[in-house]
Every structure is written in structure tokens, then in C-alpha cells.
């Protein structure tokens, strides 16, 4: 019976941690995604200096929010986001409109894909 209690407590903690992780992922990716959208808007307006500082802010937010992600997510996926972010920064620095917009769009999709992949729903279960 003691073993059952221990298993029950650990299971409850794991399920709780799972929900907390999903909530935190959603929160962090929403913020990153809105930052990416903001940079894209600034580029559209032709405000490259604002886009550049936005890109720096995005880098800082990423480093703060995604520090713990490798513990639970596939490392390859995180590496892909980091590569995409580095490319975006360079395109913004060089004021390349087409490549910067394309890269930002890809980055947004990759960031938004993370909580979607971790969500508990029938599609992901099956």
C-alpha cells in the first residue's frame, strides 16, 4: 500500500509538472511570437533600426525563456530555432527585406510549433 501511495504522489507531481510545462511553453512562445511579429511589422514599415533592436531583444528573451527547454524538448528543434534566429539577425543587420521576412516567418512557425507539439490532444496522442 505504501508503494501505491508513493507511486500516486509521484504520478500526481508528474502530471502537475506536465501541465505547468505546457502552460509555461505556451506563455513563452506567445511572447516570442509577438516579438517576431513586431520585428516583421517594423521591417514592413522600413524602420530597420527598430527591427534591429527588436531582434536583439528577441535574442535576450529567447536566452531567458528557453533556458530550460532542452530538458524537455528535442535538442534538434531548439538548435533549429537558434540557427534561424542567427540568420534573422544577420538579414536584419544587412537590411535584406525578402530574406529577413522569409526567415522571420519560418522562425514564427518554428516557435509556435513547440507548444502545439506538446499539447495534450487526440491528434498528438495518436
Amino acid at each position, binding site marked *: 500500500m505504501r*508503494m501505491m501511495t508513493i507511486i500516486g504522489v509521484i*504520478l500526481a507531481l*508528474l502530471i502537475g509538472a506536465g501541465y505547468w510545462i505546457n502552460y509555461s511553453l505556451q506563455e513563452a512562445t506567445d511572447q516570442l511570437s509577438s516579438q517576431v511579429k513586431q520585428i516583421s511589422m517594423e521591417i514592413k514599415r522600413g524602420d530597420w533600426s527598430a527591427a534591429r533592436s527588436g531582434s536583439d531583444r528577441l535574442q535576450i528573451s529567447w536566452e531567458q525563456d528557453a533556458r530550460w527547454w532542452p530538458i524537455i524538448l*528535442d*535538442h534538434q528543434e531548439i538548435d533549429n530555432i537558434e540557427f534561424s534566429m542567427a540568420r534573422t539577425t544577420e538579414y536584419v543587420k544587412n537590411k535584406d527585406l525578402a530574406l529577413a521576412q522569409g526567415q522571420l516567418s519560418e522562425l514564427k512557425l518554428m516557435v509556435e510549433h513547440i507548444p502545439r507539439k506538446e499539447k495534450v490532444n487526440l491528434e498528438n496522442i495518436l
Partner: protein
Amino acid sequence: MNLVIIRTLILYTTVVVFLRIMGKRQIGQLQPYELVVIIMISELAAIPMQNTGIPIINGLIPIFILFAAEEVLSYIALKSERARGVICGKPSILIANSRINEEEMRRLRYNINELLEQLRLKDVTNICDVEYAILETGGQLSVILKSQKRPVEPADLGVATGYEGLSTTLVIDGHVIHENLKQVFLNLDWLKAELDKDGVTRFSDVFFASVNPQGELFYQLKQS
């Protein structure tokens, strides 16, 4: 490289701990649901061990969940007779009064050659000698011979036998096991005196020593 070493050690320790908690049953005695857990755990541990791109937690959590599921099923099987029948299955009588139960053999997809092989492994060559052969839930075949074919036991002959009991290990590789000495109501002085009789003065020279319920000491000295 070092990462792989650390991850391997963590996963290995986890698997050993969980298998240790799960019990002492040998592979051949595992119930189907236990065998499934063993196979899956080994696979789950191996993947994050070799692929450092996969978070180690993706291996550890499923291992724990499988362990938990196995423990819950064992607990249910322990508490409920009906659940036990569903989870572990029921023993099947393959031979009753020397007659092979064809229908049961067909249902279990157990062929006659397998049955004969299992009987031979139990030193039975003639089905006529078998009163019952029961296929247990763990997959072993229990064979009960007819009374006239069973080996003679002292009780059959009416011979009185003495208590045999178990021998208790007292020294392993030069180390005296004080707990066992206390358990058989003996002490270090007795052990020393017994070894002294044969000129053995140091416990560290003894490779193995045990005492039987009659109080007789058996020992073997180290070779070098």
C-alpha cells in the same frame, strides 16, 4: 563523449533500481505483463543513452510510468481473484488422467512436440505416467505423476527422518558475518575455537565457512 557516459550511468542506475523494486522473479517466471515491461524498459533506456539529442527525461518518465503501471497491475492482481484471472491468465490443464486435452492445446496453440519436450525436461518419457500436466500462467509446465510412478519418499516407507534445516554462512572471503553468527546463537569465540582446532588462526585465511543445524562447521581456506 563524457555526456554519453554520464547519461548511460544515469539510465543504467534507474533501470537497475526499478527492476530491483519490481521484484526478484526470473525472466522465465514473468507474467506476460511483466515481460512486456522488461522489454519496453530496456528499449526506452537504450534510445536516450545513445542519442544525446533526446532529453534524458524522455527516457526516465516512460520508465517510471511503466514501472507504476506494472506495480498497479500487480497490486490489483494481488487483491482481486477475478482481476488476477484477467491480468495473469489461468493455469491450463493439458493432460488429465493421462489424456491430452486437445481442445485446450489447440486454444493455446501449444503443439504436441512442445508438450513432449517439456515432459522430457521433467524426466517423463511416457504420457501414461502423467496424472496431470498443467501449463502455468508464467509458461512453465507442472507435471504431477501418478502415485505409483512417483519416486519413493521416506513417508511412503514409514521411515522417520531428522530435521535438516539450512546451513548458515559464517565467513565469506575472510569476513565474518556477525549477524548470521548471532542468528544461530553462536559467537566469535566459538568460531575461533573451532578454527583453532585445525590450526587456522586468522579469519582472513578462510575463504568460506558455514555451520549446519547440527553445529558442524564446514570451512575452506583461501588458496593463496
